């Protein structure tokens, strides 16, 4: 592959800044706190699912009960373990009994600390087994139907109806898609619960529910067999239920999750603390269950200029990487994001796009970079849109990107129709094939426009991260360093769901995950 000469010392410096930034958030924010959503995740991994008659999920009901009793700071784990000891039934039954008020919940003195702890350990080991088996199951499937060649062709479906989505997904796979992402219904990020069951109505997308995950994964297993390569399934672990969705996704053998360290804070006005706390746990789950994360750097470019603000993308990638590693994600799991969003009217814009894509490629050589297509400047003239996507496809294959979000010619008009997806994939398939080895056959001129542009972005990134590190990430966000959006420590949605861990707080799943470290195979 063509390479740009980068100063490796400078690369080390920016990586160190990012690490310092991440470590400080880990120490000062994440380690001491938990959240309602983290606790609900524990319940889900202990085996709690389902809703009451009004549709409120049991995990929410149970955590709320504990919160009412002001006991949440100790963590839900021990209380639920005690209830199981009391009910002598499985987790689901126990949850139902708790919610029906048939078990006294919150009282644990009935049982010895040791008994409770050993029940917690038992439940947690089971939970980890669930995560392990997701990892192993996927790896086995990928032995039979291997992963295709990179860049992986990532295609969205978004009808709102999981059954129509399934039809669309299969169609997309038959046209060559390697990855199917089910776009979520508008603003699911803001829901403080995970909807339940198969859903047939959504706005701009389909709700992320465990049942929907299952339905789609099953369809893709069939599609994989037909295709001969493994088709991955993506959803979103963003918003107020990051870690819960990660748990559901792991249980249903999902392969990737959108999961960005600052997306919710900046673009959804979710509280900072809540986000960082939830996210750490969600990523630990992903690490263990071998779910790749996709980060959301593209979002920086939908609201601000792609050349002027290229450094925000690079900076965010570095922070996502550093935080990801603190949550035990491996390089191979880091689908760091970037996007082809330069105004098509800019002279030599394509050279700049190449520079940006190449810089990302070289900064994160082992990460399956997620490359987003043009969206902001996509034309309503769908014939012209095809041309922009062609150039995007070319940039992607030439710089060796990992996860290629296929651009859609009707991007500026509506969520894709079946034929839009077909046209998109015809474009991708052609360009990937006809220019497959272009990146190996050219070199970027030393000190040329491309190399210089990459260097400029790297310089701006270094300067920026230094400043962020000086005042700390929390403060930098408060002051509007990122995307020009100011988010205060005490602002945003979901802060009331965050709490300081009590000295006898317990969450053995989290502890085990952290202790056991990265597990492969």
């Amino acid at each position, binding site marked *: 592959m063509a390479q740009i000469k980068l100063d490796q010392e400078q690369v080390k410096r920016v990586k160190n800044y990012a690490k310092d930034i991440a470590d400080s958030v880990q120490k000062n924010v994440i380690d001491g706190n938990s959240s309602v959503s983290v606790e609900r995740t524990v319940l889900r991994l202990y085996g709690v699912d389902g809703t009451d008659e009004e549709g409120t999920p049991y995990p929410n009901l149970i955590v709320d009960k504990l919160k009412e009793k002001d006991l949440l700071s100790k963590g839900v784990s021990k209380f639920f373990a005690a209830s199981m000891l009391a009910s002598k039934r499985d987790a689901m039954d126990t949850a139902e009994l708790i919610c029906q008020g048939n078990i006294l919940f919150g009282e644990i003195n009935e049982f010895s600390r040791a008994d409770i702890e050993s029940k917690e350990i038992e439940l947690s080991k089971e939970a980890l087994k669930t995560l392990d088996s997701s990892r192993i199951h996927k790896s086995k499937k990928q032995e039979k139907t291997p992963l295709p060649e990179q860049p992986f062709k990532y295609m969205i479906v978004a009808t709102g109806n999981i059954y129509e989505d399934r039809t669309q997904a*299969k169609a997309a796979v*038959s046209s060559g898609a390697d990855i199917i992402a089910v776009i979520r219904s*508008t*603003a699911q990020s803001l829901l403080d619960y995970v909807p339940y069951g198969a859903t047939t109505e959504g*706005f*701009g997308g389909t709700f992320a529910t465990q049942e929907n995950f299952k339905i789609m994964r099953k369809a893709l297993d069939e599609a994989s067999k037909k295709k001969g390569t493994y088709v991955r399934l993506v959803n979103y672990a963003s918003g107020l239920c990051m870690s819960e969705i990660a748990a559901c996704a792991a249980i249903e053998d999902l392969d990737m999750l959108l999961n960005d360290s600052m997306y919710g804070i900046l673009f959804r006005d979710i509280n900072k603390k809540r986000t960082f706390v939830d996210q750490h746990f969600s990523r630990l789950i992903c690490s263990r269950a071998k779910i790749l994360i996709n980060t959301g750097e593209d979002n920086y470019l939908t609201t601000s200029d792609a050349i002027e603000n290229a450094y925000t993308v690079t900076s965010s990638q570095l922070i996502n990487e550093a935080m990801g590693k603190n949550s035990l994600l491996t390089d191979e799991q880091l689908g760091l994001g970037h996007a082809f969003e330069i105004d098509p009217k800019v002279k030599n814009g394509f050279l700049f796009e190449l520079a940006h894509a190449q810089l990302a490629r070289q900064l994160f050589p082992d990460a399956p970079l997620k490359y987003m297509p043009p969206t902001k400047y996509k034309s*309503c003239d769908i014939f012209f849109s095809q041309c922009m996507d062609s150039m995007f496809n070319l940039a992607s294959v030439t710089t060796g990107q990992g996860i290629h979000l296929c651009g859609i010619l009707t991007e500026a008009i509506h969520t894709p129709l*079946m034929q839009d997806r077909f046209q998109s994939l015809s474009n991708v398939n052609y360009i990937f094939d006809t220019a497959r080895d272009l990146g190996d056959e050219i070199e970027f001129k030393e000190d040329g426009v491309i190399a210089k542009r990459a260097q400029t972005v790297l310089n701006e990134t270094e300067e920026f991260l230094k400043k962020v590190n000086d005042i700390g990430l929390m403060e930098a966000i408060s002051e509007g360093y990122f995307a020009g959006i100011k988010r205060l420590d005490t602002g945003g949605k979901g802060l009331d769901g965050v709490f300081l861990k009590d000295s006898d707080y317990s969450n053995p799943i989290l502890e085990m995950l952290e202790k056991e470290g990265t597990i492969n195979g």
Partner: protein
Amino acid sequence: MGNLIKPYGDTIDDGIVQLSFTLPVTNGAKAKKAAEIYANNLKIEDVTIAHAEEIAEGFTYFVIFGKASVSIDYDSVKASEVSTEFYDYYEINSLIKEKINRKVNVVGASIGTDAHTVGIDAIMNMKGYDGDYGLERYPEINATNLGSQVTCEELVESALKNGSDAILVSQTVTQKDAHIRNFTELIELLEAEKIRKQFLVIAGGPRITNDLAIELGYDAGFGAGTVPSQVASYIVTCLVKE
């Protein structure tokens, strides 16, 4: 008989149109014939099924050319456009100073669950759009941008509090007619509170036309490519008239 027009391919009145659609059928001679008949039913003659491809099991996609057989009388087409003189930044500020003699108050938001702010920001933020300054930049305008995901109640409350002359509403998500529902909700709220007449209420967004806005009870509507000075011109012209 007015001014009859038809689509133009390369000769006046040849009526040529390009069409693409997907039918839920397996590809083959019958599918192509069905596409041809379907196009005929859409009043398109001399149909060429240029391309037919089965893009999913049981779904065939077609690219079609043909000659539309109908004409319309262009003279009879009526479309409303925001009808006002358009002034520039300086003219607008002078007009306000001279003819209105107080600052103009404007409040704007993207309502409902719509999280798209780029459109309303383009109109309101300092920076503006396409080289045209945003309303916040106008010394004679007090512009308040509430951002996105704003409820109708919040917006109306803010308008009342600021003594707004105009309320600007943006909607980008149009799937399942989400914008129609949101736009309507606002007007209904204003009418319920009997304050509709108190404001100029202006709709905007990539799929908005003046016709649609007026139909929904708004004073005006602005679509893709709008620049802030057009909106300011409209507001000021209306206020001067009053």
